[in-house]
């Protein structure tokens, strides 16, 4: 558990080295594929976490923004001949703008409404992607999306793709880490913990909420670009409401407002179903239910998730048990108003 800047830097370094060596050590296509999908979902979970974890708004339609990014990037590279890196940036920009446009009307009122409007957005995205044949090619999706690459070099094979995505993901995590540690992040946290107080001390509550939502959507758009170019396919099925709910579960399970938590949540939610897929198919049916039960349990005992901000989990659990035993107040006072 990373407790300080030094520890978190070492943790990040170890994770990067392990991931970078994985395609060399582990033969075959299976593990590099799983790790690549994990990296992509780590970006989605990060986007969700900026909105839900740092700023405290529940969004349930992030797959829609990932879809906007994926389609933008795929169409720009395939039909427009734009180099991947520019398409990637454009994907993020468009998703971010879409997020801001959606958030402005919702956030004028209480942010509860956002959760339902984002569901609506996701459903709407699916309907449009499925039916606007001229642009999106309909339910079959866009096939033959060009691979990722930089300055004329194209990533070929699972190892090179993994390395390129790893570099991108590390940059994004470092960027979000700096953002959330700075004044913007503190404003977001304050809004999450007490909106009224934040407004009273002069924080532009609506502005920062819109900024958080746009940032999270931008990240999901970037992740969507990675997703489409990695699979070389973009289809409406990749960005359904279920995928949004998965992103939400990852962010919460791993840890709200936690960088390593976002990555851990993605790893757990990708890895565990893959490992169960062959042995116990009925568990796959139950997967959302199990995840749901875990969410309820987490909300009651550890509302910040496994690696959420605050004390390390072992200490928190022990501390909670102690406080229970002596009838003291529960941990995480900032989440218990």
């Amino acid at each position, binding site marked *: 558990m990373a407790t300080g800047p030094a520890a978190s830097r070492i943790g990040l370094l170890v994770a990067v080295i392990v991931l970078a060596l994985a395609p060399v050590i582990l033969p075959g296509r299976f593990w590099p594929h799983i790790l690549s999908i994990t990296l992509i979902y780590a970006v989605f979970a990060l986007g969700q976490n900026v909105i*839900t974890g740092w700023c*405290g*708004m*529940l969004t*349930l339609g992030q797959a829609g923004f990932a879809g906007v990014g994926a389609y933008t990037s795929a169409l720009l590279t395939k039909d427009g001949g734009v180099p991947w890196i520019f398409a990637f940036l454009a994907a993020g920009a468009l998703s971010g703008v879409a997020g801001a446009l959606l958030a402005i*009307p*919702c*956030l*004028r*009122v*209480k*942010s*509860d*409404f956002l*959760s*339902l*409007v984002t*569901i*609506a957005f996701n*459903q*709407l995205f699916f*309907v449009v992607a499925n039916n606007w044949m001229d642009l999106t090619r309909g339910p079959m999706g866009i096939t033959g999306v060009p691979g990722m690459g930089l300055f004329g070099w194209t990533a070929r094979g699972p190892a090179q793709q993994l390395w390129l995505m790893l570099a991108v993901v590390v940059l994004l995590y470092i960027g979000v880490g700096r953002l959330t540690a700075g004044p913007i992040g503190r404003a977001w946290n304050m809004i*999450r*913990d007490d*909106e009224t107080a934040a*407004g009273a001390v002069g924080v532009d*509550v*609506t502005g920062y*909420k819109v900024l958080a939502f746009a940032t999270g959507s931008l990240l999901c758009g970037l992740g969507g670009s990675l997703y489409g170019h990695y699979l070389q396919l973009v289809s409406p099925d990749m960005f359904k*409401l279920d995928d949004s*709910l998965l992103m*939400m579960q990852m962010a*919460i399970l791993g840890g709200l407002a936690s960088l390593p938590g976002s990555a851990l949540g993605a790893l757990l939610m990708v890895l565990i179903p893959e490992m169960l897929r062959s042995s116990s198919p*009925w568990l796959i*049916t*139950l*997967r*959302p*239910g*199990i*995840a*749901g*039960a*875990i*969410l*309820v349990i987490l*909300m*009651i005992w550890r*509302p910040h998730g496994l690696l959420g901000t605050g004390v390390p989990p072992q200490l928190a659990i022990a501390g909670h048990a102690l406080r229970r035993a002596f009838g003291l107040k529960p941990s995480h006072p*900032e*989440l*218990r*108003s």
Partner: protein
Amino acid sequence: MAYALEQLSNGLAIGSIYALIALGYSLVYSILNLINFAHGYVIMVGAFVALSLLQAGVPPAFAVLLACLSGVAIAVVVERVAYRPVRSSNRIVPMISALGAGFVLSSLAQLIWGPEVHPFPQLIPRVPLTVGALTLSSQSVVILAIAIGLVLAASWFLHRTKFGVAAQCVRQDLEAARLVGIPVNAVIVAIYALGGFLGVAGGVLFAMYFNAVFIQMGLLATTKAWAAAMLGGIGSFQGAFWGGLILGIAETGAVATFGAAYRDGVSLAVIVLVLLLRPNGLFGARLAERS
């Protein structure tokens, strides 16, 4: 003209179903400010229970009543397990907990009944009724009558009984209600139970109207309930009723004009439009809290 009136009667029938579903939802929001994501899933499970009872040969009226009671039981259990422990937490926490409870219900239902769409027995015969130049579906008329009857009963219960007065107090100020000796927890449980009962009644009528029961009904019902409740003014009993009726009529109109594919788009459009234009709903019974 006759065609429009026939469509109106269909719209009223489906709208009254939405009203039933929206009432419980809106009540919970008005008391706890909680978006009850599990509500739709409770309704879905209740409709499946009704289906299983009917297939087992239980007399229809009895089967539907039992299904509604199962809705009560599930709603009470969900409240106890997933809501009460987190009631005083940051507002995002109970919402996530509610979603989690919804996932659990949805997975269990899928495990028991499978992911496919099940046809639902037609308990109310669909015969054409001719009134003058109009041809109405008997089913629409009966659904409308049942729904309005239930809404009136619930309205009497909430406005004229001692329990109803207690519920109004809890709604206005939970802590003050507790201080003057109102059993707040019992009232909240009863509100959930009422919501479960009305919701499952609506869910069974919904299943009958569309001749289908399926897992995704859970989230669909939540979306419709939310749209109806917002349209009428979130947290208001009357608002939910009128919002449901208007939503039903709007949907039927959209289906008649653009085709059946756009049915579910209407509720989404309604949510966004209401947020943009009138966050307090058409009847503005209670102010949506501005941030």
